[in-house]
């Protein structure tokens, strides 16, 4: 028996950015178009070390399905990814590895710290745990929770999308940004 074919009619398209349109043309700024494109096709790099990683697993699996937000492609190679999602405790032993992964990513790159541990060390105020990944790499969005619920992770992801969508193309060349990286010892 053939199955009835179903079409998904509930597809939502993104709004057209501001601009001038006339017959056969549409003019707008690069910032907006590129931001729009980047924002809806973020490639996340999950850097999952512990409990929060399991909750991330739920986020990308069937029930919550993060792919709906344009992050279908979960890539595990830093060189191709835009968004580093750090989930879980980062110990001092792991910190250089994390930094290395960050350095390997190409600009523009964003970082989300998911969970209390990645943001601040969480309950582990101990000799072996890094007290927040912002000690070694700059972070764009922090997601609270121990672990954050999948909804919270998705929310954090959407915040990153907002940042990505609004970012000026010049930001990464600005002195302020260079200064920020320099403060982490990154050239």
């Amino acid at each position: 028996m053939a199955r009835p074919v179903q079409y998904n009619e509930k597809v939502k398209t993104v709004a057209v950015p501001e601009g001038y349109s006339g017959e056969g043309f549409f003019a707008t700024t690069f910032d907006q178009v590129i931001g729009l494109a980047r924002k809806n096709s973020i490639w996340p790099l999950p850097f999952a070390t512990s409990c929060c990683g399991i909750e991330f697993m739920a986020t990308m699996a069937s029930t919550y399905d993060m792919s709906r937000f344009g992050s279908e492609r979960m890539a595990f190679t830093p060189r191709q990814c835009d968004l580093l999602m750090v989930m879980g405790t980062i110990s001092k032993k792991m910190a250089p590895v994390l930094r290395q992964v960050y350095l390997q990513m190409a600009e523009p790159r964003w970082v989300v710290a998911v969970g209390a541990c990645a943001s601040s060390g969480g309950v582990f105020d101990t000799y072996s745990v890094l007290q927040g990944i912002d000690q070694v790499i700059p972070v764009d969005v922090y997601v609270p929770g121990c672990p954050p619920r999948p909804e919270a992770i998705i929310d954090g992801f959407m915040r990153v999308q907002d940042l990505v969508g609004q970012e000026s193309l010049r930001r990464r060349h600005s002195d302020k940004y260079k200064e920020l990286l320099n403060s982490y010892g990154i050239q």
Partner: protein
Amino acid sequence: MSEQHITLPEGSIERQTQTLNLGPTHPATHGVFQNILEIDGERIVSSESTVGYIHRAFEKIAERRPYYQITPLTDRLNYCSSPINNMGWHMTVEKLLGIQTPKRVDYLRIIIMELARITDHLICNGVVGVDSGAFTGFLYLMKYRELVYEIYEEICGSRLTTNIGRVGGFERNFTPAAFEKIERFLKEYPVALKEFETMMNRNRIFMERTQGVGPISAERAMNYGFTGPNLRAAGVDYDVRVAQPYCSYEDFEFTIPVGTTGDCYDRFLVRNAEMWESLSIIRQAMDKVKELPSDVYHADVPAYYLPEKSAVYTKMEALIYHFKIIMGESDILPGELYNPVEGANGELGFYLISDGGRSPYRLHFRRPCFIYYQAYGELIKGAMLSDAVICMSSLNLIAGELDA
């Protein structure tokens, strides 16, 4: 291993092996382990593992925290099945204090622990599927894990790191909705599990990929300190639930599935069979719970069990206990004990030394993962690189538990 037909001269380039660094963030390693492999083509000649990438100093923290604040730490050991760790810890303290829990508490605990076992095994088996190229099974099973998480949420309000229960019982009674959700899970999950088994168990590709991969003999497994499903897959019927029954497990009927060769395929089958056993245990427990008075959910130990909030506002005594427990001023009897429970990965032991103070003098967790990961090098020696990946996921290594 195929034979070599051509004799290579000494020092020829084909004779040289190369070093491959697998981890600590390699996509094929679920969790943070580093394996430095010496490979000859696709074959692994030798390997060296490094662990400790998420060492969080649980044992040191435990020496500084009052007893009830240690429960959240145990959550984070094996986070795929936190309730087992929580309850193992509660039972250790109860044993030290000589608290007898009512039968209903035991049965409710068993329901939760077996649910946790199921979630742990389903992730493990799902991931074994993923590593052998079958992503579908994983996605299907994950849907049912969400059902279990909803049950946890109904009972304790949290999903993954549950911090469920108290010393002496549960913090609140199970709601009718919780029982309904359990019933729903019991009805729906077997269908999915059956489907999953039909897809995998006799699947030619899956069998080729897993049979004979990473085998271990019973003797070696025991010498390496294997416990839990991995030991049983090698043919030893050791299960703490039977060998040293706790929490009224002796009231239940279940079998211990065992394998023969201890390879990935056997481990997979043993875990699947255990899920069926767990389902049957939950069924039995649900029936037993129905026959007991429905308002008992903790033992009567006011000095250690946090009183109800309404009582704290109205009764002097409850207020005092509340204060003492919250401030961590309630002392625990001195003593020394080792209390094992059957965690999802094997024997999870709590070695507790109390000097009578507010926090343990020393608390050591026997973490099954940590102990059996040593054997990994031996398991994958001479195997293909892709087999090493399956072997790792079928051992079910949980980084949080491994590194403590």
